[in-house]
């Protein structure tokens, strides 16, 4: 290693001393970090924090809804909770968690020394606390936090008080962060792979992230454009969403969902990747149909751009439009089915064991599929007229997002934690965490299907008495699920106390990340890994 080169650029080497062999000391390590592992860690911790804040808001929602009648909050505040809960969970918890995993694992999986653009990587992260600091501060502003739903439909959102511009700009910042993060992921994957790792040899997690990053670059700017138009409509008298001026409130919905639908796949594709990494390890069998998984994920990504108006079957679209969006939406079931079938085929005739990561992955396959089925039901336009904006939709998307994305994130955390910390976590507690989560998540969200079918609208703080029972069940489930997550934190906090992990951690896992010691050294693959290590994959 040529240390003289490192010294040659000391002018940009703030406070770091000779940090080449290890992390810098003190807060500077985190503020100025260009190390993909440190930045990955920061993303993960940030996302956990946001998960708890967003979850606390969910608890406010569920407490209010536990019984009919208004008990705790005013309707306006309830709407603020719903809006903030969703924005925080989507942009603050799930997306950053996946970016954190990408930061940690992609360089390790493809044999790269770091992310391709390390300084920008740092900035991607450090924009997030600013964005969410601004967003959360709106809770304390005159008129309160945004209350128009995370979908921010005009004209309602234009009735937001002082927090309106803060909402818009925090969304801009989230977009900026995501775009820079996505550029980094793409460039890293395309440009930094170890020699001989052809694209089709890449692990599934890397593949799904590559596709996700393309989605991000394509749609986050569109969201930025959409909210910019809200801003100018509000403050500069434009008429984008004003019919009298020749615009149309529905135009916003089109632009929003052009972003919004790919966005939901942004939240699920990396989860697919995680699960595709975990299941083969614990089934002791290679991933079934690696290449068709790649094609399926790409098809899902492609289709995600032409289905958006399935969120808008009640806005009065012309018939041809409705038919088009219904058919394309239904088509997504095909590639998604391929993924599900391939996971099952991976398990088939494997030799399975059921460590915590595997349990989360199995629950993912079951419960995501259920969420997918309800998605397919929603795609049936005439039926969606009945489902739309009811708790049936809430049930659908929490199934794909909570036991979907969130379970995959937790499975990933357990799966790679020994690689990060060098210690095995407490397996028994992990299992308890899994089982309580799995039971309570169903108790929370399954009854919502019934509520929706029985015509309970979403985004209401109080409801008629016939919905009382299932709401009580859901609230109990939610509190149980929330408390279970304290266990997760406990497992994380105590994970350093466990026995030392080996480099492989699990039973003969495949992939480059398992060839480096546990914990992974601060710098890995400074020279690309050799060919023989490469061949061990696939």
């Amino acid at each position, binding site marked *: 290693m040529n240390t003289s080169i490192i010294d040659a650029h000391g002018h940009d080497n703030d406070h770091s001393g000779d940090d080449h062999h290890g992390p810098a000391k003190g807060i500077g390590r985190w503020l100025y970090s260009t190390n993909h592992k440190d930045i990955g860690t920061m993303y993960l911790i940030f996302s956990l924090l946001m998960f708890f804040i967003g979850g606390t808001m969910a608890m406010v929602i569920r407490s209010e809804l536990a*019984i009919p009648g208004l008990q*705790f909050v005013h*309707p306006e505040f309830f709407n603020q909770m719903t809006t903030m809960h969703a924005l925080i969970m989507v942009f603050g918890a799930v997306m950053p968690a996946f970016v954190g995993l990408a930061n940690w694992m992609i360089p390790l999986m493809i044999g790269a020394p770091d992310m391709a653009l390390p300084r920008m990587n740092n900035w991607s992260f450090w924009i997030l606390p600013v964005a969410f600091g601004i967003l959360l501060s709106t809770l304390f502003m005159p008129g309160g936090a945004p209350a128009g739903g995370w979908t921010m439909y005009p004209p309602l959102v234009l009735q937001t008080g002082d927090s309106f511009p803060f909402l818009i700009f925090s969304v801009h910042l989230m977009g900026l962060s995501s775009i820079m993060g996505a550029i980094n992921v793409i460039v890293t994957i395309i440009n930094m792979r170890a020699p001989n790792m052809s694209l089709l040899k890449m692990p599934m997690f890397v593949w799904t992230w590559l596709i996700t990053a393309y989605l991000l670059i394509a749609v986050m700017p569109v969201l930025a454009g959409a909210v910019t138009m809200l801003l100018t409509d509000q403050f500069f008298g434009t008429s984008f969403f004003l019919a009298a001026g020749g615009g149309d409130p529905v135009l916003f919905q089109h632009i929003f969902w052009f972003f919004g639908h790919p966005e939901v796949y942004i939240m699920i594709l990396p989860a697919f990747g995680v699960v595709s990494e975990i299941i083969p390890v614990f089934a002791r069998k290679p991933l079934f149909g690696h290449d068709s998984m790649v094609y399926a994920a790409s098809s899902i990504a492609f289709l995600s751009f032409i289905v958006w108006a399935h969120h808008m079957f009640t806005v009065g679209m012309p*018939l041809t439009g409705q038919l088009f969006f219904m058919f394309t939406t239904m088509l997504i079931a095909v590639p998604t089915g391929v993924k599900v079938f391939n996971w099952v085929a991976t398990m088939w005739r494997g030799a399975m064991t059921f460590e915590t990561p595997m349990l989360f992955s*199995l629950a993912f396959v079951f419960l995501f599929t259920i969420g997918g089925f309800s998605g397919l039901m929603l795609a049936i336009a005439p039926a969606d007229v009945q489902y739309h904006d009811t708790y049936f939709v809430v049930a659908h998307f929490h199934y794909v997002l909570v036991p979907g994305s969130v379970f995959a994130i937790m499975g990933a955390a357990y799966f790679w934690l020994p690689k990060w910390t060098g210690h095995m976590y407490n397996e028994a507690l992990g299992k308890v965490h899994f089982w309580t989560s799995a039971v309570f998540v169903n108790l929370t969200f399954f009854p919502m299907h019934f509520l929706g079918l029985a015509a309970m609208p979403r*985004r*209401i703080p109080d409801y008629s008495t016939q919905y009382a029972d299932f709401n009580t069940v859901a609230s*109990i489930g939610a509190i149980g699920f929330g408390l279970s997550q304290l266990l997760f934190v406990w497992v994380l906090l105590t994970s350093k106390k466990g026995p030392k992990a080996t480099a492989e951690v699990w039973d003969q896992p495949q992939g480059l990340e398992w060839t480096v010691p546990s914990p992974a050294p601060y710098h890995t693959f400074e020279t690309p890994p050799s060919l023989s290590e490469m061949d061990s994959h696939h």
Partner: protein
Amino acid sequence: MTEPVSVQFLSVLERLACLSRRAAASQVNNLMTRKLSLSLLGLILAGTANAEWALNMPKGVTDLSLETYNLHMMVFWWCVAIAVVVFGVMIVSLVKHRKSRGVVAATFSHSTTAEVIWTTIPVIILVLMAVPTAETMVKLEDSRDPDLSIVITAYQWKWHYKYQDTDVEFYSSLARESLGARRKQSGIDPFSVENYLRDVDNPMVIPRDAKVRLLFTSNDVIHSWWLPAFAIKKDAIPGIVNEAWFRANEVGIYRGQCAELCGKDHGYMPIVVEVIEPEAYAAWIASHDGER
């Protein structure tokens, strides 16, 4: 809003903490225990008529609402069937193919035949779903030649109904009984209010067996007029007029709610439609016409 948000938030936490203590002193108590003691199973086994409403989409009282219901059930059963197969295979695998049973993992990692099969079969199933759905959608759009047209304008937070070609028009908002009980900690048990939050002062009245065209628009933000029994949910958008139609086969009182978030009282703008016999309707119109 009356109090600053931060104060409110604290008070929520505070109230969460003292919920049980406070509840002991009020009727909320009976209510809570009643709720909590209800087991999910008991609930599902509850009276049949009730159970159908509580668990599934209503069949409604129009031909198209029934068609919608049938589509819903068709897709549902397809999903169940697929679930049985997929989950069945998975469960068999989870039971049989465990390391603890001493199995040695196979090594296969792809099969083009299998992939083709499980790509094709879902496509076929989807086509089977899509065809009847498309047929229904064509019918849903056909609002030509109605017997009666009503313009429905949404306001924050009430509805306005205007019967075309007559002088009949009126506002319709949350009924008085609910108004009192809906206030925060009103002390009124919602169970004691009939049709809590689902009743209005002036219901929309229409004749049985007439083709009714509804024309929706809004005065402020987007709302959505939803009547499950007619399988109609249409957004009321400012500056735009949307259409829907129905023909109700049975007299009765049908309830729905605004279905698009429209601000703080979005949960409090119910919809009630009374379907009455044509003769009674004629009388109703006559008595209301020119009343304005």
